[in-house]
C-alpha cells in the first residue's frame, strides 16, 4: 500500500475544524427554522390563511410614435380592463352569470379565456375584457363586494390619433400567438401580451415595448388590496420619431381618397420617406397586400432606358428616329400611344413626349439582357430593404430567367414590350421612387428609411438613423444631366406629357407612365372602358431640379393616363411640401437659379 495509517492520521487531525464548520452550518438552519416557525409563526400563519400575497402586474406603456416634427401620431390612453383572480372567486357560477348579464361574456367565452391561461397560477389575474365603458365600470364597482375575485385595473391602450392616417405604415397591435411565443426573441412575453403585428409597430417592437412592472400586494379575503409589500415600476417603451411629415401624409391621404393606388414621397437626398399612402386603406383582408403594391400586369415606361442605350453606345442623344404611330416587328405591330405618331424624335423629345416607338427601337438594339442588367443596376427587381415586412422584390426579366421559369427561349418581340416597361416587368412604387430619387440626387440609391430616431421617455436619444447609400446607378454624370433635362422637359415643355404637374416658379421634373391592365382595342375610348380594365396611371416627380427636396411617386389604379390622373396629385403634394418647408423657414435651398417661389403662396394656381 502506498499510504500507511500514518497518512490517514493527517486527516484525522483535521476532523475537528470540519466538524465545527458543519455544526455551524446546521446551527444557522436550525435557528432560522425556529425564527420563521416559532417567532414569526403567527404572522406567516395569518398570511397563509387566505394566501394573501398576490402579484399585480403593471403593464408598461408602449412607446409613442411621432412624426418628423415631433407631433404625436400614436399614443396611449387609459383603458379599464376587467380581470379575474380564480383563487379569490367565491361563487364561480354567480360570477359567470354576472359577467354574462353585464358584460355579455358568455360562460363559454369565459371558459375559453380561463383555459388559455390555465398554466398561470390561480392567484394571478386573467384578463377577461379590455376597455369597458364607464357605465360598466360603475356597475362593476357597485357590485364589488358581492363579487370577490373580479378586479378592474387601468391599463394603457393604444390610441391612433388620426384614424386612417398611415394605417398601412403604422400597423397595429394584436395578442401574441402561440407560434410567436415559442420564438426566442419573444422569450420575455407571456400569453395575452400585445405585440406589433404589422408596419412600424411590428418592425420597431423591441424599442416600443417597455418593461412591465408589478407589485406584491397583501389582500383581504375579498381579494382587495390592503398594502403593497414590494414593487417594481414599469419602464415605458421608447418613442419612435418617424421621417414622415404628418401634414404631408394627410394631404396624400386626402388626395388618394376614393381612389385605389399608392403615393410615396421621399427626400431624395437621404432616402427618408416623407409620406406613404396605400389605398384602399386599412382593412384586415388587405394585410398581406399593403405597402408593396405590385402590378402584375404592367408598368411604366421607364425613364431610364434610353440612358442605358447611351451608356452602351448603341444610340446617341442626337440620333433621330422616326415615329409613325406604330412599329412593325416580325408579323406584329407595336403601337405608340399617340396614334398619329411623333414624327422625327431624338432622345430628349422621346422622353418628353413619351414616344413608345423610339424606345421599341432602342430596346431592340440593346437586347433584353443588357436592358435587364441596367434595370437591376437601378435597384429594380430586388427589394429596397425598407424596414417593413413582406416587401416584394418585383421582377426584371432576362433570357436566362425565362429559360428557367418557363423553359422557353426569349422572343425579341418581348424585348420591345419590356423596353417600354411592360411585359413581364414588375416594379413597386417604392422601387420607382428610388430610381427617380437617384436621378434627382446625382445617382445615389439610398435605403428608404421610415424612422428618424428613437428616444427614451426622458428624451435621451437611443438611436439615430443615418442615410445609408446602397449603390450608385450605372450612369455617367453627363448622361444623368441629359436625362434630367429631359425630365424637366416632361413637365415644363409645352409638348411634355407631364405638363399638368407644372408649378410656377418651381423646377418640377417628372415622368408619366401608363400601365396596361389588358390589351385594349385601338378604337375604344377611355371613358367607355370598364373601370377594372382601365390603365394604371403613374407619375414620378421631383423638385426642384437642382437641389431636390422631395421626390414622389403616384400610382392611381385604373386611373387612365399617368398625365391626367397622377400628375395633378404629384403636383399638389410637391406644392404642399414646399409650403411646409417655407413655414419651417427651410425653403432657402429651393431658390436655385434665382427663380421665384412667391407663387407658392398665391392661392390661385393650386386648387
Amino acid at each position, binding site marked *: 500500500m502506498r499510504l500507511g495509517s500514518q497518512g490517514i492520521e493527517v486527516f484525522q487531525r483535521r476532523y475537528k475544524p470540519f466538524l465545527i464548520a458543519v455544526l455551524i452550518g446546521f446551527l444557522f438552519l436550525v435557528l432560522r427554522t425556529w425564527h420563521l416557525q416559532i417567532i414569526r409563526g403567527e404572522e406567516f400563519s395569518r398570511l397563509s390563511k387566505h394566501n394573501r400575497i398576490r402579484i399585480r402586474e403593471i403593464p408598461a406603456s408602449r412607446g409613442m410614435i411621432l412624426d418628423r416634427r415631433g407631433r404625436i401620431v400614436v399614443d396611449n390612453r387609459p383603458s379599464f380592463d376587467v380581470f379575474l383572480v380564480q383563487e379569490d372567486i367565491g361563487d364561480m357560477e354567480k360570477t359567470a352569470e354576472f359577467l354574462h348579464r353585464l358584460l355579455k361574456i358568455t360562460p363559454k367565452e369565459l371558459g375559453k379565456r380561463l383555459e388559455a391561461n390555465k398554466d398561470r397560477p390561480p392567484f394571478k389575474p386573467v384578463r377577461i375584457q379590455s376597455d369597458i365603458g364607464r357605465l360598466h365600470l360603475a356597475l362593476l364597482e357597485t357590485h364589488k363586494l358581492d363579487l370577490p375575485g373580479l378586479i378592474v385595473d387601468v391599463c394603457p391602450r393604444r390610441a391612433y390619433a388620426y384614424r386612417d392616417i398611415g394605417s398601412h405604415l403604422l400597423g397595429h397591435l394584436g395578442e401574441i400567438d402561440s407560434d410567436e411565443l415559442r420564438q426566442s426573441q419573444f422569450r420575455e412575453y407571456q400569453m395575452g401580451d400585445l405585440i406589433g403585428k404589422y408596419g412600424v409597430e411590428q418592425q420597431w417592437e423591441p424599442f416600443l415595448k417597455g418593461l412591465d412592472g408589478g*407589485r406584491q400586494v397583501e389582500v383581504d379575503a375579498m381579494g382587495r388590496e390592503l398594502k403593497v409589500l414590494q414593487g417594481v415600476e414599469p419602464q415605458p417603451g421608447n418613442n419612435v420619431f418617424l421621417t414622415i411629415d404628418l401634414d404631408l401624409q394627410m394631404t396624400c391621404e386626402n388626395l388618394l381618397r376614393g381612389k385605389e393606388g399608392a403615393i410615396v414621397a421621399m427626400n431624395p437626398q437621404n432616402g427618408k420617406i416623407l409620406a406613404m399612402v396605400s389605398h384602399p386603406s386599412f382593412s384586415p383582408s388587405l394585410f398581406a397586400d399593403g405597402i408593396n403594391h405590385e402590378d402584375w400586369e404592367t408598368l411604366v415606361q421607364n425613364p431610364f432606358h434610353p440612358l442605358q442605350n447611351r451608356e452602351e453606345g448603341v444610340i446617341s442623344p442626337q440620333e433621330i428616329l422616326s415615329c409613325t404611330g406604330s412599329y412593325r416587328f416580325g408579323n406584329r405591330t407595336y403601337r405608340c400611344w399617340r396614334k398619329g405618331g411623333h414624327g422625327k424624335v431624338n432622345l430628349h423629345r422621346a422622353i418628353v413626349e413619351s414616344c413608345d416607338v423610339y424606345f421599341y427601337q432602342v430596346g431592340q438594339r440593346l437586347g433584353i439582357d443588357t436592358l435587364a442588367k441596367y434595370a437591376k443596376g437601378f435597384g429594380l427587381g430586388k427589394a429596397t430593404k425598407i424596414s417593413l415586412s413582406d416587401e416584394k422584390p418585383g421582377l426584371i426579366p432576362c433570357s436566362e430567367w425565362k429559360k428557367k421559369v418557363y423553359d422557353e427561349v426569349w422572343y425579341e418581340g418581348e424585348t420591345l414590350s419590356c423596353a417600354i416597361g411592360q411585359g413581364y416587368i414588375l416594379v413597386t412604387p417604392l422601387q420607382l421612387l428610388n430610381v427617380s430619387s437617384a436621378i434627382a440626387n446625382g445617382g445615389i440609391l439610398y435605403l428608404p428609411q421610415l424612422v428618424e430616431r428613437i428616444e427614451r421617455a426622458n428624451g435621451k436619444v437611443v438611436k439615430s438613423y443615418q442615410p445609408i447609400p446602397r449603390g450608385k446607378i450605372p450612369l455617367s454624370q453627363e448622361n444623368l444631366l441629359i436625362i434630367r433635362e429631359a425630365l424637366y422637359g416632361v413637365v415644363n415643355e409645352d409638348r411634355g406629357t407631364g405638363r399638368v404637374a407644372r408649378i410656377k416658379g418651381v423646377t418640377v421634373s417628372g415622368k408619366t407612365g401608363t400601365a396596361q391592365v389588358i390589351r385594349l382595342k385601338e378604337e375604344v375610348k377611355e371613358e367607355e372602358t370598364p373601370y377594372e380594365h382601365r390603365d394604371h396611371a403613374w407619375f414620378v416627380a421631383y423638385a426642384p431640379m437642382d437641389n431636390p427636396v422631395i421626390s414622389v411617386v403616384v400610382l392611381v389604379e385604373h386611373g387612365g393616363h399617368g398625365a391626367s390622373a397622377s400628375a395633378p396629385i404629384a403636383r399638389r403634394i410637391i406644392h404642399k411640401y414646399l409650403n411646409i418647408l417655407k413655414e419651417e423657414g427651410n425653403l432657402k435651398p429651393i431658390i436655385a437659379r434665382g427663380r421665384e417661389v412667391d407663387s407658392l403662396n398665391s392661392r390661385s394656381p393650386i386648387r
Partner: protein
Amino acid sequence: MIDRRLLTHFDWPVLILILIISCIGVLNLYSATFGEVESHLYAKQILWIGIGLAFALFITVFDYRFYRDFAYIFYGISLVLLIAVLIYSMINPEASRWIKIGPFFIQPAEPAKITIILSFAKYFDRFSKRDGYLLRELIIPFIILLVPSLMVAKQPDLGTAIGFLLIGFSILLFVKIKWKSLVIMIIGGTSIIPFVWHFLMPYQKRRILTFFNPDLDPLGAGYHIIQSKIAIGSGGFLGIKGTQCKLHFLPAQHTDFVFSVLAEEWGLLGGFILLGLYLFLILWGLNISIRSKDRFGAIVAFGVVSMIFWHMIINIGMALGIMPVVGIPLPFMSYGGSAIISMMAGVGLLLNISMRRYIF
C-alpha cells in the same frame, strides 16, 4: 471479488439513513403533488431511488481503487455530456440544462459532481503532500474544476456552478494547502470579480444581483422566497394541513422547495428531524473519510460528504430565505432522476470505502 469479510463490515447505518431520508422524500412528494397533474411523480421517484440504490450497491462490488484508474475517463465523459448540453440547447432553445436520450432527460451537471470528486482524489492521491500544496501545484485541479463550472454557468445554472466550486474548495481545504496559497487564492479570486463584472451584459448583471438578493425581483425570485417563508412559517411547531404549497403558491415545490412543503406540514418537529438525519449522515460520512485506509478513499469520501452538505445547506437555506434562489436539489428528497442517481452513486462510493477500510 466480494468476500464474507466485506459483508461483515458493511456500513448499515449509512444505508439505513439514506433509506429513511428517501422514504420521507417520497411521502413528502406524494403530499406535495396530491391531486395535481404531477401526482404520479412519487411513483417515478420510487423508481429512481430503486435504480439509484441498485447502482450504489453495484458500485460497492469493486474495490474503490479500481475507480481511481478510470477517474479521468469518467471526467472526460462528463465533459462531453456537458458540451452536448450546450449544443443541444442551441438546437432546442427550451432545453438549457438537459439532453434527451431516448425517453430520459439527463442533466449531465449532476454526475459531473461525482467525476470532479474522483478526479480531485486521483490527483491529490498521486501528488501527495503532507505540509500543504503550493499554488502552482494546484493548476491542474483548478482546470479540472473550472472547465465544467464555466460550462454549467453558461447553461446558465449559476447555482450548480457555485456548487461545483464549493465542493472543490472544500476538498482543497481537506488536503491542505499552504496558508500563503490560500490567501493569494482568495485575493486573486476577489480581485478578478470587478474585471469580469465589467464584461457582463446588463441582463447578466441583473441576474447575478437577483441571485444574491431576491428582493430585487419581487415578482419572480423574491415572490418565491416570500411564499416559501409563509409556507414554512405557517407550519408552526407541529405543522398544519397546508394550503400554501397545494395551491401552487410555491413554484417547483417538488424539486427546489421540498423543504418548504415538509416544514409546512410537519412543522418545526418535522424540519428538525430531517435536519438531524442529515447531520447524522454527514458526521458519519466524515468519520468514514478520516478512517479510510488510504488517501484516495479519504478524499473521495470527504468529497461525497461535502457534496451532500453543501446541497443541503444551500437548498434548505434558500427555502428559509437566507441563501440565493438556485435550482440545487435537496439530496434524496427533491424529485429528479439525475440528481437521485448521482447522489446514490456518491453513497455507493461511501459504502465502498467504509466496508473496505480494514481490508488491505
